[in-house]
């Protein structure tokens, strides 16, 4: 056989081996990176959600009987301190590194008490641990923490939501010292972020710890870490306020009932209409405080929504947020 043909066969086999091994080794890192990007929170922030339904497509094979909390972590610079509350039913926390490996797991029966403190560090950090937190060393700088709580029956959900909401994640220097970021939500009204739309000429304020995300059918969308309540601003067509609200909410739910309407005045003097709406969002009973302002032949609709079985409807707080709407 000609020499160049032999060389081509040898090179083809070698290249096939290299591509094969690269695919097998690199794929878990790509999958992990992609999976982490689907969790809607910033790094080192806790998030939680009710048990998945058919519409939830965060990670394959979700358990519909488990309420998940998560934290995408990055301990390249600082350590992460977790303060966790544990329910009477099954609970576990698992730490996954950047190649998907689960390197540490603890369940409620292994925990020493109903309140546990854990300190996540990277392998190069020297840790001072005066509070005797459980120190977990991550083999990689980035990864994902997953907390699972089995929901024995739907009536236990409010209690489990409360437990999940008691958990905190704080970033701090590995040698101890003051937290890098303040973990607890700041008192209401004192730390608000502002969104301004030059195109539509309005601004609106929302709690700073809420996260702004892209959401179809809205101009602006932000949500709490739970990940409720949610705040959305949208422009919709509608002959009346009720029509516009129904049109907006029907983008993500059904059974929309708009309550009695009242005329309100925003801080900048703009006349607006407000109402409470009850509806079904992704199969759960949703409650929203809605403010609408008629602009030409369309409505600008601001909606603050919660699912009351997880987080109670708070009209005072929700209306305060919706009423920060101002036009320039």
């Amino acid at each position, binding site marked *: 056989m000609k020499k160049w043909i032999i060389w081509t066969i040898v090179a083809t086999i070698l290249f096939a081996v290299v591509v*094969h091994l690269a695919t097998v*080794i690199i794929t878990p890192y790509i*999958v992990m990176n992609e999976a982490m990007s689907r969790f809607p929170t910033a790094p080192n922030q806790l998030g939680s959600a009710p048990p998945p339904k*058919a519409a939830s497509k965060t990670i394959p094979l979700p358990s519909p*009987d488990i309420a998940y909390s998560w934290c995408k972590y990055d301990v390249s610079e600082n350590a992460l301190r977790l303060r966790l509350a544990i329910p009477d039913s099954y609970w576990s926390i698992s730490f996954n590194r950047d*190649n998907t490996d689960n390197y540490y797991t603890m369940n409620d029966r292994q925990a020493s008490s109903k309140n546990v403190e854990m300190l996540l560090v990277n392998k190069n950090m020297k840790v001072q641990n005066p509070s005797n937190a459980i120190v977990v060393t991550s083999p990689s700088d980035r990864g994902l923490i997953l907390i699972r709580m089995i929901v024995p029956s739907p009536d236990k959900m409010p209690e489990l939501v409360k437990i999940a909401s008691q958990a905190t994640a704080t970033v701090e220097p590995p040698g101890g010292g003051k937290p890098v970021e303040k973990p607890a939500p700041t008192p209401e009204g004192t730390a608000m972020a502002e969104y301004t739309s030059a195109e539509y000429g309005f601004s609106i304020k929302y709690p700073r710890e809420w996260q702004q995300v892209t959401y179809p059918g809205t101009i602006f969308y932000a949500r709490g870490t739970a990940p409720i309540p949610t705040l959305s601003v949208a422009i919709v067509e509608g002959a009346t306020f009720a029509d516009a609200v129904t049109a907006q909410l029907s983008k993500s739910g059904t059974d929309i009932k708009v309550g009695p309407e009242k005329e309100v005045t925003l801080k900048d003097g703009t006349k607006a209409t407000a109402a409470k709406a009850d509806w079904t969002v992704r199969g759960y009973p949703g409650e929203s405080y809605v403010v609408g302002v008629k602009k030409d032949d369309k409505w600008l609709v601001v909606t603050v929504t919660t699912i009351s079985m997880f987080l109670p409807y708070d009209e005072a707080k929700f209306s305060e947020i919706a009423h920060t709407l101002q036009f320039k």
Partner: protein
Amino acid sequence: MKTWVKVITSVLIVIAVGGGLGYGSSYKIGRAIYDAEAVHNGPWTTNLIQGSTAQDIYTRYVISIWAVMALPRQETLYYGTYRTDSGEQLLTEYDYVIEGKNLDTRWWSITVYDDEGWLFPNELNRYSYNVDTVKFDTDGKYRIHLSRTPKEGNWLPLGNSTTFQLLLRCYNPGPIFYEKPGEVELPHVMKEAGK
């Protein structure tokens, strides 16, 4: 043949054939190694190193595609199946029944998923039964019906994907599961008579 023609031909063959073989073989070989390491129990399959740091590169690769973020065995054993007891593939056009007894675990659940691992949309939002929700018959066994149309008793709705899969989660299983993971009695999966 001129030298430059040989070089270009060789490079193209190496990239196309080598790259194709290398990439195409990764899942096939990975799956074969995963299956060889897996523990079989009737129609059910589990893997004792999945999710953990003890995973070899092939198990990690296959699990990252199928079941990323699975818990390690000391916490949970996952048994999955695409088949009935008699080895037939599960298809949504037929009716099936899962029959079993309570398991020696802290908690267990059986969930039905489409072929991609997502839940079937249905009006009841019902996707699974677990030790707390399943109704046992007087003989101490439970029977869960799987079909597109509603059935009396424990019923899990099937959707429109052609094939589907079942996943049995065994949380904090008893010692028997670790001693005999391939022999412990698991639920039976059977096609319903007349369908």
